[in-house]
């Protein structure tokens, strides 16, 4: 018998993942060609605005995926996952800031504009090294991972669970938001970091760069999905679900619960950090609002609406809610927050398994009859 390649094994029995990622692949390919091959004005052309929007949704989908890993499978409702996303975003934004060079308003080749404005004479020490893309990208993963490790180490060792843990994650992101809002933190205060010009030598204004970022975001999402699915399919994944369903029982079976939680929490934070690093160049700005508890809670709503504990449900949820958000905030801005709140209530009451749950239920019904 020939052994199947690992990638196919991961997708075995995962119709939902095959469909969702397959559809996304087609959409990304279509958008890529429609943007690059057809000139503006042709009715087949797809605007660069749409390309960027899709790229942003993909980054959010990766973030939602990372949350589903800890919430759906490990049972930890993190209300502060936006913090890991924002930290990854800031790390990569620091690289982008240092690429501006003397093209800023003040024309200072050494310092970003906001530092000149604040009368800083030289780069603060924690900005050192961020001119190197590899270092910056490493930090975009390392910093969120380290924060998750330290936070998880103390929280899980002291066996904080449930609502208390959720509140602590919320406090964590809130504290970071307050810190990043301060101008003297050295991260641009409430204006955040913006005005990026180049990424790895390519102009961010180019359609080609935008399309490349879109494709990279898609590949990152696929990779994140494969890693998550691999973990969930392994025995470690089954231990994680067992922890979700009966933590103390798992201990009596001989599993050191804290290590399992810590591992998945850190993997998830790193994934969120990568998502943040992909988000920043496409959106063109990062500011402390990403640390706000509101954003993290919205993120939980995406996953709940899509259907938690399925991985692909998180991706669906991220797309649907963000598409709705884009549509409503331009068409009916005053209605959006009510619509989001209403949607969440409806889903919680009538669709405990989210949108994915509807499809699955119908399939079960047909299977029985």
């Amino acid at each position, binding site marked *: 018998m020939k052994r199947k390649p690992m990638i196919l094994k991961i997708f075995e029995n995962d119709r939902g993942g095959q469909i969702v990622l397959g559809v996304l692949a087609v959409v990304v390919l279509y958008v890529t060609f429609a943007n690059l091959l057809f000139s503006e004005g042709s009715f087949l052309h797809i605007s660069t605005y749409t390309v960027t929007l899709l790229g942003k949704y993909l980054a959010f989908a990766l973030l939602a995926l990372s949350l589903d890993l800890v919430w759906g499978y490990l049972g930890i409702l993190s209300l502060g996952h936006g913090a890991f996303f924002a930290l990854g975003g800031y790390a990569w934004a620091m690289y982008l800031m240092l690429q501006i060079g003397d093209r800023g308003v003040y024309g200072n080749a050494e310092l970003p504009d906001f530092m000149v404005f604040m009368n800083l004479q030289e780069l603060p020490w924690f900005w050192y090294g961020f001119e190197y893309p590899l270092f910056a990208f490493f930090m975009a993963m390392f910093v969120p991972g380290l924060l998750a490790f330290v936070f998880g180490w103390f929280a899980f060792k002291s066996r904080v669970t449930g609502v208390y843990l959720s509140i602590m994650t919320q406090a964590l992101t809130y504290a970071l938001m307050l810190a990043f809002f301060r101008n003297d933190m050295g991260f641009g205060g409430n204006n955040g970091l913006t005005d990026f010009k180049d990424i790895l030598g390519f102009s961010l204004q180019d359609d080609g760069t935008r399309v490349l970022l879109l494709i990279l975001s898609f590949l990152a999402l696929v990779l994140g999905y494969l890693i998550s699915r691999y973990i969930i399919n392994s*025995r470690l994944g*089954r231990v994680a679900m*067992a922890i979700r369903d009966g933590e103390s*029982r*798992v201990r*009596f*079976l*001989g599993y*050191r619960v804290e290590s399992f939680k810590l591992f998945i929490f850190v993997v998830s934070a790193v994934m969120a950090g990568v998502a943040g690093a992909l988000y920043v160049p496409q959106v063109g700005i990062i500011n402390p609002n990403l640390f706000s508890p509101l954003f993290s809670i919205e993120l939980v709503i995406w996953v709940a609406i899509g259907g938690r504990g399925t991985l692909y449900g998180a991706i669906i949820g991220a797309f649907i809610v963000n598409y709705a958000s884009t549509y409503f905030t331009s068409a009916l801005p005053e209605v959006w927050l009510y619509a989001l709140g209403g949607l969440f209530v409806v889903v919680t009451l009538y669709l405990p398994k989210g949108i994915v749950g509807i499809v699955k239920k119908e399939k079960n019904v047909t299977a029985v009859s």
Partner: protein
Amino acid sequence: MLPLYHENEKNVGDLKQGSRILLVDGVTLSFDGFKALNNLSFSIDYGELRCIIGANGAGKSTMMDVVTGKTKPDSGEVIFGQAVNLLQMDEPAIAEVGIGRKFQKPTIFSGHTVFENLELAIKDDKRFFKTLFANLKGEQRDKIEETLELIGLQELSKKSASILSHGQKQWLEIGMLLVQDPKLLLVDEPVAGMTPSEVEKTGEILTSLSGNHSVVVVEHDMEFIRSIAKKVTVLHEGSVLAEGNMKDIQENEKVRHVYLGE
């Protein structure tokens, strides 16, 4: 600092028929002034099947909590094998050294299939990195199949554990204990909610286990205890009231007074 695994292995020592496997010595534990355990002392021999009885609040479940590391006592000593100090260890370490537990309320993982429940319990390296790449070995798979047959759940092995009846859940948990292959099994009310034929079969399983394992059964069902017990320990208000064979216990004045209410 937790003792290292190989040290524990060494300290368990050479277990043979008749040597002591568990010593509980002078253990006291109070909750807000109420002494749940009061200078509790007893020991279990290797290969023995021991029943522990006692009224509600006598300290049976608390005693199990102390032995399995869930609760730390105020004073006293709990020694496993020749020299493993259980009071210094946490739950996973105690499970690893060879103590398995079945809870009063069947606690199985309802999100998993019957087979997966056994897979999670099976004796193996349980460090997180190992489980990421773990595969069932041939003999482990055989062991699970064998256990499924013993507990009568082969047909349901691919079904979610949440659909099991109460009695089946009890057996699944016993099965989890079996594949874990501990040296000492602590079994809390194994026959609660079982039909008479199920009770009988559970008794057979537990009896067949003793010999190669030590089994401690906490039960309320006196008939069940009569059917399996060789030696019985009676707990009362957190300490041992009497110990001996079933006949002696039934004739014991103190026991009749406090436990049987006569």
